[in-house]
Every structure is written in structure tokens, then in C-alpha cells.
């Protein structure tokens, strides 16, 4: 295993820990805003993991996926935050 692959495995483990933590916050979060924020973090970790895989293996096949996720991934958070009313506290 080259140094790059070992670094890739360790970085993948760290991405996984961050993603599982965001997922726990999605399940636990007492309000919908916590869940929105944690979904945003989960999506950003997915983008980082895709880019890291492209950097390790040296291909560019998933670059359009990265672009589309980065552009449109935040629309959900903004929509939920914009239209949240006082009654929808959960």
C-alpha cells in the first residue's frame, strides 16, 4: 500500500466519523433547524469524500456530480429556513 492509499484510508475513516455524527444529529436534533443544518453538513462531507476519491485515484469521472451537488445542495436548507413558522417547532 502506498503512502497515498494509507492516507486515503485514514481520511475515509475521518469522513465516516463526521458523517455518522451528522446523522446522529439528524435523528436526535430537537428542532427542524438542527436537522437542516446536519443535512447540510452531511452533504458537504459527501462532496469532500467524492473529491478526495478523485484526487487519490487520479480520474475526473465524478466531477459533474460534484458540481451539481455543490450548486443545488443548499436549496433545501434555505427553503426550510425561509418557510419555517412558529408552530412547526419539531
Amino acid at each position: 500500500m502506498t503512502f497515498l492509499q494509507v492516507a486515503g484510508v485514514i481520511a475515509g475513516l475521518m469522513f465516516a466519523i463526521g458523517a455518522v455524527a451528522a446523522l446522529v444529529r439528524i435523528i436526535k436534533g430537537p428542532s427542524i433547524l438542527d436537522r437542516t443544518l446536519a443535512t447540510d453538513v452531511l452533504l458537504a462531507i459527501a462532496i469532500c469524500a467524492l473529491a478526495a476519491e478523485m484526487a487519490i485515484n487520479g480520474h475526473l469521472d465524478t466531477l459533474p456530480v460534484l458540481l451539481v451537488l455543490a450548486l443545488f445542495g443548499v436549496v433545501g436548507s434555505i427553503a426550510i429556513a425561509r418557510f419555517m413558522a412558529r408552530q412547526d417547532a419539531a
Partner: protein
Amino acid sequence: MNATEISIAVLILVSGFLSMAAGIGILRFPDVLTRLHAGTKPQVLGLAVVLAAMVVREPVWGVLTSVIVIMTFQLLTQPMAAHMIARSAYRTDHVRHDMLLVDELARDLAERERD
């Protein structure tokens, strides 16, 4: 094992550490507003670092322009989303007022109501 490979590996490790910090921060912080700090700042920096690793790996003009576009949109949209979440949290009473030292927005709102 040359300098390029070592720099790519270091950049990917830094990005992994920052993403883990964002995830753990969003799990352990006590309030919506503090979780906003953890959920946006290390995350955007981790994305910038791993996109730099991609550019180092394939120094092609197409990759560089795509990376610049991705980073610009993330830098534009993440603060906007954080601002709207914070505003919505304040207006629907999701803020823990016992943990705030100074609350300038309450003072401004009270001043405006008096007029």
C-alpha cells in the same frame, strides 16, 4: 514517493480532520446558534483543501476552472444558508437565552417597538 504525492496526502488528511471536527462539533455543541459555527466554518475550509488536492493531482485548466466555480458557489451559499437558519432560529425561539452574553437584536427590536 515524491513531493506531489506527499502534499496530496497531507491535504486530504487535513480535509478529513476538518470534516470530522465539523461532525463532532455539530454533535456536541448545546444550541442551534453554536452548532452553526461548527457546521459551516470547518466544512468550507475542508472543501477548499480537498479541491486544492484535486488540482495538485491533475494540473489541467479544466479542473482548475471547475474547482474555482465549485468553491465560489459554496462560499456564496453556505453563509447565506447559515444566516437564514440563524434568523429563523431567533424568530421562532430556538435560542437559549441563558447562554448569551450580549443580545443586541433584542435591544434593537425593543427600541423599534417603542417608536
